[in-house]
């Protein structure tokens, strides 16, 4: 009994450490991304702490409640951020995750959905014309993105014959018997759709400031907005880490601090890629984005069939 208690306490401590780490890291990453973007655009850019400053400022600002049921968007913001914090305990971030034994890859996919669901509840709850248009767009994107991620995970699970995160979502897509065709196709497919997962140009149709004024986010302000901004920052970090886990598992064999550092170097590279792509593209129209994801999904399903055949 004592031993079990110790294990539980250890797991809890690891969770707290993991959560604190991503909470501290995400705003800094945001600052770095903005700096990088600014450099690409021949600008000076804000200081790298700007992510923190923004959050602190917003946390103290007035919370304007536009919704008829004002607690709903707020609760939705809690849900989004809470889900991502839980994901930080499930996802390998350079080391085995604290809750890896108690969860599986299917849950991971559902957590991604759940985080998005918070955004949608906020948008629908606020009920403004623009927030609903944004929510509608977000749904259209999400409906196609979530299965895309699911296909990658499922392909990994098929190859590895296991749904454990450490198996299916850790380079499992490449674990084919023969040449990893399915893995490569999925790598390309997810890479081409990846900005949508982290809501960046060219796929930020649900926010699209110059069209629908941040869409679902529009009626959020003050702390609620801060939480959603925080969620967006965490998404960038965690989903990039998820991408690294899924598709770039190499070179972490050494273990320990070296592997941890290497993991974050790879994640940083993915984030930098996202920022560069965002700076070099115009936003797609919603129907173009939907069509694009539809084609990606069709390709992914084809790849999954290949995976079923052992490739």
């Amino acid at each position: 009994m004592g031993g079990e208690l110790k294990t539980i306490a250890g797991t809890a401590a690891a969770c707290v450490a993991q959560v604190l780490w991503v909470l501290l890291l995400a705003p800094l990453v945001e600052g770095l991304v903005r700096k990088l973007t600014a450099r690409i655009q021949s600008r000076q850019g804000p200081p790298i702490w700007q992510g923190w400053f923004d959050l602190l400022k917003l946390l103290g600002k007035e919370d304007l409640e536009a919704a008829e049921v004002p607690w709903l968007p707020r609760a939705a913001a809690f849900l989004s951020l809470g889900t991502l914090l839980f994901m930080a305990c499930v996802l390998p971030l350079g080391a085995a995750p604290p809750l890896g034994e108690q969860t599986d890859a299917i849950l991971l996919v559902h957590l991604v959905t759940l985080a998005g669901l918070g955004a949608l509840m906020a948008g629908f709850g606020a009920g403004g014309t623009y927030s609903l248009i944004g929510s509608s767009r977000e749904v259209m994107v999400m409906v196609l993105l979530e299965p895309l991620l699911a296909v990658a995970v499922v392909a990994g699970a098929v190859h590895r014959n296991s749904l454990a995160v450490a198996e299916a979502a850790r380079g499992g897509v490449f674990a084919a018997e023969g040449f990893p065709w399915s893995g490569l196709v999925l790598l390309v497919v997810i890479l081409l759709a990846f900005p949508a997962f982290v809501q960046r140009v060219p796929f930020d149709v649900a926010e699209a400031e110059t069209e629908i004024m941040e869409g679902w986010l529009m009626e959020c302000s003050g702390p609620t907005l801060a939480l959603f901004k925080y969620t967006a920052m965490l998404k960038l970090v965690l989903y990039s880490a998820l991408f690294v886990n899924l598709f770039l598992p190499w070179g972490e064999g050494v273990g320990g601090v070296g592997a941890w550092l290497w993991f974050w170097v790879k994640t940083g590279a993915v984030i930098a890629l996202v920022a560069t792509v965002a700076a070099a593209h115009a936003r797609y129209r919603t129907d173009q984005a939907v069509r694009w994801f539809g084609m990606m999904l069709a390709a992914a399903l084809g790849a999954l069939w290949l995976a079923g055949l052992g490739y």
Partner: protein
Amino acid sequence: MKAREKERTLRERFGAAIRRTDVTSPGRWCLYVAPEAIREVCRFVFREMDARYVISVGMDDRPYSGRFLVSHNFAFDRDGILAAFLAELPPDRPEIPSIAGEVPAAGWAEREFRDLVGIEPKGHPYPKRLVLPDGWPDGVHPLRKDHAWNEVPEDWDDEVTFRFDDPPEGCTVVPFGPFHPTLDEPAHFRLYVEGETVRGCEYRGFMVHRGIEKLAESVMSYNDIPMLAERICGICGCVHNVAYAQAVESAAGIQPPPRAEYIRTVMLELERLHSHLLWVGLACHILGFDTLFMQAFRIREPLMWIAEKISGNRKTYSLCLVGGVRWEITPPLAAELRGILDRLEKEWNEVAQAVGRDRNIQRRTRGVGMADARLVKELGLLGPVARAAGVDIDCRRDHPYAAYDRVEFDVVVELDGDVWSRVLVRVREVFESIRIIRQCLEKMEPGPIQTPIDEELLPGRIGLSSVEAPRGESHHFVVTGENNRPRRWRVRAPTYQNLQGVPAMIRDQTLADMTIALGSIDPCFSCTDRLETVDLRTGLVKVWSQAELEQLVRARKSH
């Protein structure tokens, strides 16, 4: 003389309805028509003689001729003629047959003189309030001479809201503007959206109507007005400045010295350059492509600096007086300008090639916001919008002014009539502008920059002037008057016509395309509104009411 030939045609057809005619200069033609024949004459001119509709002006001429006047202005672009078809209306019954049924482009202009001058366009297809604010009472017309420039009607009602039409079945009304990131100036579009598709819209603009025309007619002098005119617009102010000066010059028969004309040309083209660069940046911003937005602004910045060096201001050059210009382009400035142009050309080449290769931008702009040649003709669309639809019009070539008849340039025309074509037109016009400025700097001879004007200008003369602004033709109509100020000055910015084409351009487009389609006309609402921007300023806690703001403005004026 082509104007005389056209007059003969009209007289043959309409006989006594053509009352008198006045060809003030080779390119300017005024024709007085019996009011009851005006609709038929305009139809004939517009349809059979293929004239381009420019603007309609209503005037309260009662203190001078005892009548109301309406002028329908048309342009014969192939013959280089700007024409005014005037009708005199009795003072007790200011009514005129509406031409909007025959000439759809006149829809707004007739509604405007209905609002402001109180001349009723009989049989107008959509006689709804256009310019006057929501709380303004019916039956009060601010541009009548018996209405003081600073008078607010007693029964102004703050509570009145505009009555919009009902949306079609199954459509959601999406309010778009006045405060929207894509609109840099206030205007309201009531979009009827089904899903994401825009099925139609209603426009409510003129939110910042400043009464500039009234101000000029009431309290300013000929040489004050250029400074007021360029404050019509923050982007293409110099165009209004030059157009006004030219309109007065054309009315009074004044010829500015050649060097002044070259300087006007250089500054106008400088303005076009910065405006097009700005537009490309903003269009990219609308599409979410912020990198090109930032780069365009970086490339544009030296142009602003050289403008400041020449005129003392980045924008709002205060360039013209009647009969000349105020700023000299000295040899060192000319040399610096050449250097800037060289660098601009190089950098713009890179941008142009990047844009040309970018499939992403093309996907967002091809087949979007279509305005074909027919629509251009019907609604009198102008500038890059017209040229992108294959309609080859450009005032610089068709109605030459300043020094444009002494430089070589191509009028850039594309055929598809979509946003992409407008991008192409503007991108390539930048190169043409560079070419024009270089030639001007080459050909400018030393000399005076101002013609002295010794005597008072004769009243009652009509002056027409068209200047090709970056967005299309800016048209100024001036009737000279007493007390060193015009009796009537009417400004028609290109956006005034182009905006009327927007509903057709965005119909059945997605919401996302709507913003870029609107952006593609390079809308300039303040040009259209001709008034000073007074936002509801939010103080720490206080929101200013309309009445308080008015008080504030008045208090300032009395100082």
